[in-house]
């Protein structure tokens, strides 16, 4: 956090509120301005979902300093959990989300036990391999998951609030605001978590693990908790993704999606709270545009990775912050 301690005190107290106000202002008014610039509501919904996944992932990368390259697994497990619940248990959207979070969160908690002692690229390598286990199961358990073709045959159900019913199944705009509410709650929880003593301890581990250990902080337990929480929130994003598409497919568990989640966090700015959301917005929009323009979209996506790493390693918000503090 040495970069932010150099920031003068007034800027430090004002800036987060200003950023949050801009972000929420833009998100709340999406259905009004997005069609004017040629977008469509489903695209904004995808930005929210991927943004939530990237922000959840960033709890681990940006704020704990550990790099998971297998987060697509928990995203995909969330999607399958929600889809299977809607298909086989009950036509209830909240239940589907709960099952998705449970499936992804528990898998993350269990795997987390095996990897907390690893660091750096080895942490990444084991998380990739674990991620592929989930991919492999979804891919080959044909009778349950639909295998290669993905899980179909479920639709999101309207939300019953007691006094009224919100028809998220047919009304795209209603569904967008439903996503925004869930996103807001999840992001609020993540923000509270980071501001709590637990969150501060994670920052201490990121900055200097050895010193934190000397202070008596149980490092492994903190990393494990951070990993599990991050996985649970990523699974929530995954369950929203299943609701958005009424579909869950094995590519949602593949490690190429893990890489995309990482690049979203990095290109938006992994040290900034809102960075991953900005990165997700950029990535989703650019990918949508490129894949409609050319069949060779993979080259362009790869080029985004290379350019971001070589020339913009601090990400968009990271560069803005850096300029502001000087």
């Amino acid at each position, binding site marked *: 956090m040495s970069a932010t301690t150099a920031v003068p005190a007034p800027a430090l107290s004002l800036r987060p509120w200003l950023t949050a106000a801009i972000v929420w202002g833009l998100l709340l008014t999406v259905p009004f301005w997005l069609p004017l610039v040629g977008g469509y509501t489903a695209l904004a919904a995808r930005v929210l979902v991927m943004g939530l996944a990237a922000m959840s992932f960033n709890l681990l990368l940006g704020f704990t300093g550990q790099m998971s390259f297998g987060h697509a697994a928990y995203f995909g497990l969330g999607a399958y959990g929600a889809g299977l619940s809607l298909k086989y248990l009950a036509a209830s959207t909240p239940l589907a989300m709960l099952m998705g979070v449970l499936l992804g969160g528990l898998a993350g908690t269990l795997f987390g036990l095996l990897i907390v002692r690893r660091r750096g690229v080895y942490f990444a390598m084991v998380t990739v391999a674990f991620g592929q286990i989930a991919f492999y199961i979804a891919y080959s358990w044909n009778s349950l998951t639909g295998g290669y073709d993905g899980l179909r045959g479920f639709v999101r159900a309207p939300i019953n609030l007691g006094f009224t019913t919100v028809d998220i199944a047919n009304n795209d705009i209603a569904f967008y605001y439903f996503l925004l509410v869930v996103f807001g709650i999840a992001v609020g929880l993540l923000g509270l978590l980071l501001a709590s003593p637990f969150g501060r301890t994670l920052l201490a581990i990121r900055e200097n693990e050895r010193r934190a250990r000397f202070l008596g902080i149980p490092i492994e337990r903190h990393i494990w908790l951070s990993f599990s929480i991050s996985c649970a929130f990523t699974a929530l994003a995954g369950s929203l993704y299943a609701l958005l598409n009424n579909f869950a497919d094995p590519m949602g568990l593949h490690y190429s999606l893990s*890489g995309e989640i990482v690049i979203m966090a990095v290109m938006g700015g992994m040290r900034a709270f809102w960075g991953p959301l900005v990165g997700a917005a950029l990535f989703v929009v650019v990918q949508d545009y490129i894949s409609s323009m050319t069949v060779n979209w*993979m080259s362009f996506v790869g080029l985004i990775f290379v350019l971001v790493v070589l020339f913009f390693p601090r990400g968009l918000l990271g560069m803005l912050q850096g300029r502001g503090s000087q």
Partner: protein
Amino acid sequence: MLQLVLFNVTNGLIIGAFYVLMALGLSLILNLSNVINFAHGNFLALGGYIAFVLTPYIGFWGALLVAPILTAVLGFVVERLMIRRVYSRDPVYSLLLTFGLAFIIQDVCRYIWGPNGLPMTVPDVLAQPLSQNLFFITGYRVFMVAVVIIAVAGLFAFLRFTRVGIRIRAGTLDLDTVAALGVNVGLLRSLNFAVGCLLAGLAGVLAAGQIGLNPNMGDDVLMPSFIAIIVGGVGSLTGTLLGGLLIGVAGALTTIVWPAASEAVIYVIMLVVLVVRPRGLMGEEGMLT
């Protein structure tokens, strides 16, 4: 039954040999430069395609020799131009960089040679079965295993007896000291990366003769190669060698009793190793933490 077991052990050894070639290259790069090369499978594909292009001019035997070297040259250039720039940064950047490169190389292969599979012919000498009874042991399969054995023996000899090889091993243990002794560490890392790509390219040529060519032919080998490294133990090339053979043969033997689980058994082995012996079969204590 004996024939079936032999058939699957042969298959397993061949698949394992590919894992070994890939995993040894990955392991070399990982140990010295702390980089996971996600594009390694794409260097395998490049090796195969280069051989495909060269075969009409210099024949299969010439391509077998030249294609891996050209792959290594490409790897050297990629390392010099890009990967070298991120060594001093957080490891997340090297991962993202090789990840992006994997996308680009795969797409370029698809653009140049098309999305569909291409056949690659091997000399008639190698295509014949060696005996009527053991029809599955074609000359080509024996040849592949022989080439892999020679390549692995060559690699270990290179690391043990040549100056560059000794420096690579020393750098794996303590790069700062090696640099302080006056070794050009940047060049050493580039050469090491090139050696890794050489092995991938060789695997590509051999695989092309067996299963043909397609743009994502390396993808199926990448993940088992990671697992071979984890199972064998990070930091130990001998461990990687054993890990690759182990998961190759285990996968093939599972095919006899339960074909659907042949891939699952690889992951099960990894989980068992991680629970029972986290540092891997031959890994050094403390290498992972």
